[in-house]
């Protein structure tokens, strides 16, 4: 199937912002046909059963320290001793952004109007990009928190309620990225750009209605391959 829209390729931000960030451009350009997620950190031979490890510990690009983000005051965890936990706990949105703040995927699980979405995207970018490897993978964000992980130039962010389980979502991100990597055979940023409709399918297989739907990589990939065979 031929589905690479030509006029849009030219509009891809890589080219459009070429003047603004040559270094990044050249790096990205040299890698457009190569994986940018994992190859730099792990030779694929080392990945048992096709598993890969995150590069979150070793950022690819030099990090410039800036002012630390200012989280909101903490909120109680919504559970009292012997009381009944009542607070809602769900994913509010999932964002994939690159370092320049360009959104590669936005999946919303609650209603926001368009202006609000744009504001959230900008705020998330501002909050997440200033953090380094010594920081936690969790940031308080408005009345929620963001669990994020960085893979090469991309930030995968999941926004959840404050009383939800941080590590479970952190690993849900990694599980998701491993599926993408397997599905796209060494995924890179441009895979996500041009196969956006497939990425949405992957997301819907793994997350639905703000909840984790399926966690087995084998099952998800099997389903995805079945769907691909229908094309």
């Amino acid at each position, binding site marked *: *199937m031929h589905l690479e*829209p*030509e*006029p*849009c390729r*030219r509009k891809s931000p890589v*080219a459009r912002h070429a003047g603004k960030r040559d270094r990044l451009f050249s790096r990205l350009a040299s890698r457009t046909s190569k994986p940018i997620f994992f190859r730099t950190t792990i030779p694929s031979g080392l990945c048992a059963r096709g*598993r890969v*490890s995150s590069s979150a*510990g070793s950022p690819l690009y030099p990090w410039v320290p800036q002012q*630390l983000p*200012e*989280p909101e*005051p903490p*909120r*109680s*965890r*919504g*559970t009292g*001793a*012997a009381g*009944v936990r009542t607070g*809602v706990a769900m994913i509010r949105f999932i964002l994939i952004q690159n370092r320049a703040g360009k959104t590669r995927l936005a999946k919303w699980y*609650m*209603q*926001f109007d368009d202006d609000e979405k744009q504001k959230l995207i900008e705020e998330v970018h501002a909050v997440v990009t200033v*953090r380094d490897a*010594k920081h*936690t*993978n*969790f*940031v308080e964000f*408005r*009345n*929620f928190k963001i669990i994020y992980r960085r893979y090469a130039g991309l930030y995968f962010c999941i926004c959840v309620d*404050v009383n939800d*389980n941080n*590590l*479970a979502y952190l*690993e*849900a991100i*990694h*599980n998701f990225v491993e599926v993408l990597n397997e599905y796209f055979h060494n995924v890179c940023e441009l895979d996500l750009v041009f196969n*956006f*409709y497939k990425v949405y399918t992957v997301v*819907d297989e793994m997350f*639905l*209605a703000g*909840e*984790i*739907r*399926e*966690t*087995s*990589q*084998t099952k998800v990939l099997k*389903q995805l391959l*079945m*769907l691909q065979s*229908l094309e």
Partner: protein
Amino acid sequence: MPAVSKGDGMRGLAVFISDIRNCDKALDGYSKKKYVCKLLFIFLLGHDIDFGHMEAVNLLSSNRYTEKQIGYLFISVLVNSNSELIRLINNAIKNDLASRNPTFMGLALHCIANVGSREMAEAFAGEIPKILVAGDTMDSVKQSAALCLLRLHRASPDLVPVGDWTSRVVHLLNDQHLGVVTAATSLITTLAQKNPEEFKTSVSLAVSRLSRIVTSASTDLQDYTYYFVPAPWLSVKLLRLLQCYPPPDPAVRGRLTECLEAILNKAQEPPKSKKVQHSNAKNAVLFEAISLVTHHDSEPNLLVRACNQLGQFLQHRETNLRYLALESMCTLASSEFSHEAVKTHIETVINALKTERDVSVRQRAVDLLYAMCDRSNAQQIVAEMLSYLETADYSIREEIVLKVAILAEKYAVDYTWYVDTILNLIRIAGDYVSEEVWYRVIQIVINRDDVQGYAAKTVFEALQAPACHENLVKVGGYILGEFGNLIAGDPRSSPLTQFHLLHSKFHLCSVPTRALLLSTYIKFVNLFPEVKGTIQDVLRSDSQLKNADVELQQRAVEYLRLSTVASTDILATVLEEMPPFPERESSILAKLKKKKGPSTVTDLEEAKRERSADVNGGPEPALASTSAVSTPSPSADLLGLGAAPPVPAGPPPSSGGLLVDVFSDSPSAAAPLAPGSEDNFARFVCKNNGVLFENQLLQIGLKSEFRQNLGRMFIFYGNKTSTQFLNFTPTLICSDDLQANLSLQTKPVDPTVDGGAQVQQAVNIECVSDFTEAPVLNIQFRYGGTFQNVSVKLPITLNKFFQPTEMASQDFFQRWKQLSNPQQEVQSIFKAKHPMDTEVTKAKIIGFGSALLEEVDPNPANFVGAGIIHTRTAQIGCLLRLEPNLQAQMYRLTLRTSRETVSQRLCELLSEQF
């Protein structure tokens, strides 16, 4: 960009445009899909798309997966509540759901789950549970159906009633397919929070499922083992489901305890992999298990083990783990079983405060120190927090200040330590010391004789610093004005020195502080006659007497005049030492709670206390003294009692009682949730404060006071969610009739209400003439994306304008006879709705507003009341008599007033109460 590629791009664009232009001819499925996909891509790059919707909808009815998929994706991403399209879309979804093709059913279900609009809920809420529990549904479709139903339930709970499918949904926890169990657990957890009874059976099923996962070997679950951890996400979800319930009954409980112990044991085992994914997945389960242990708060052994495990994490090299351990320990600290165990880690936590690089980790450390603080370690913790404050991030300073202030007060054994701590706070972080904090220190100093001298000495010394914070000047000014005499014996702090010290700061201060200092000066005139001349000179100076600020000028003029004309005795009376403040819970605590968010009934109480502190004049001396200066009549007049018309034949109500009414935190019933607005309305007839309305999003509380024909009502709107309310607009709606008789004035409130925040709105009420209806309070706001609209009757009723009248028996009967005109009497005989308790009945009659007259009625079982309804146009005398009949469980209520409509209305209102 090179010219070549530009040319290429332009050609591509030209082709695209010409394709689009030519597409009024029927496109085949492939081209339609291609163009819709391109439009979608353009939209995702951030450009607006205003056509192509119809083509996308057409794609939905294609039989090819790819075309259908793009169609659904377009609909999901560019949802549009275009009614015509919604109908077509729903139609296509309906066909796909009925197709029995699992791929198409999946697409349709995902679309419903992604859009989740009300129209879709209306169309499919009945269908989806059937798909979910049908025996022949494919596993992957079940997964989607479960979460799709969850989405509809969240968006429109009223459209997804719990039905006969519930028990079958619960049994999905036993399903072979772990993916189905994962999805079902999410659904059950959400439904169980709302209907705990219906889903009770899920507890034992969840425990046995969890037990099977925990005891499985790492290879048993195959696809669901993630880096050697068996089904981590499902375990977490099951543990969260269990947190919807109290500890289960003993049999299940034993099994659950085994599971939790197994999870804790695994944390101690050597890791099966060095990968961070392994430890993260394992710890995700561990933290959720600890969360459940803390939630149950019933197994001391597990609580202490959990605490020890977290203690190990406090020093872990992973920042994530240190952060989560601090956070999790906070909740453990509040359990009596593990509080001591948490305290053993104090040094590590203090160290974290000093060394952590991530501000959010340091903040968790502050939270934990606050949570673990008790009398034994308060001094150490407060000292550490104070020293951290000097370098703390600006974003969290205010919160730390509040915490220090609270801890210092709560655990002060020695109030000199408390005073030192607060003064230190002001010195280190004066800008972040809110009014509540310095009000509070003054309240405490005034209420405690033993610390006043020390406080005066300490503030005097602190004021010596060349640069001191304005808040210190305020505290210093107030305390020296009250207790400067206690240190005046020392030549180093003679009256004149004290005055010069304060006056040296005067010109650097803002207007409110200067006003406070002027009051201090006049208090000095009383305390130290020897400095009277100096102070009069200062007050007389042009910069005071002709000050551009009217408040300062007025104070200078009045104080100068007072100091010249008043005799020593009068001065001593007017400028007497402030009386002790009534003991009440710290307003700082309220402020911290407010900052923290969750709004509850207790928060409402806090807010009231905070406000009534202001009513009392706070610690600002000027308020009390200026009003005393400008109104020569006795204090009763301040309350407006002097203007009360003479009450016929009867002693006036004691002003003492009224004072209590105005200032006390009258007990507002921590009301059980009453679903009916009418019920709530009736409850407010005999009381003024309490919760008027509450649902899952919003709580509305009321506090009101009425005097004669005037009243003021404070409406508190509490946002119970963690999400902002937008366009928040409460409106008062009065019918034309009502508008003529009842005048309501209110100011609009801020249109956004932050999650967990509470806003208040004051309503000024004037009763023009007697009225029967009640105004309606309508509240509209956006929560998330949905529009919310709530209407409640506002309990402003005629009896609120009652003034009780005491009278003797013969007066009563004389008046009773005068009101013998048949229109003036209204009688009602009704069955008792509540147990017939004499004391409760008395309280209700008093709450209703009339005086309860004892020993008036010859039959002591009867109740007799009298009062006057005040309106702007008239005063209406009212007499009432309530005769209970215990055998028949009936009451007879008789009202006699000088106006027929009033008799009618009061009778209606009061007869609803018994």
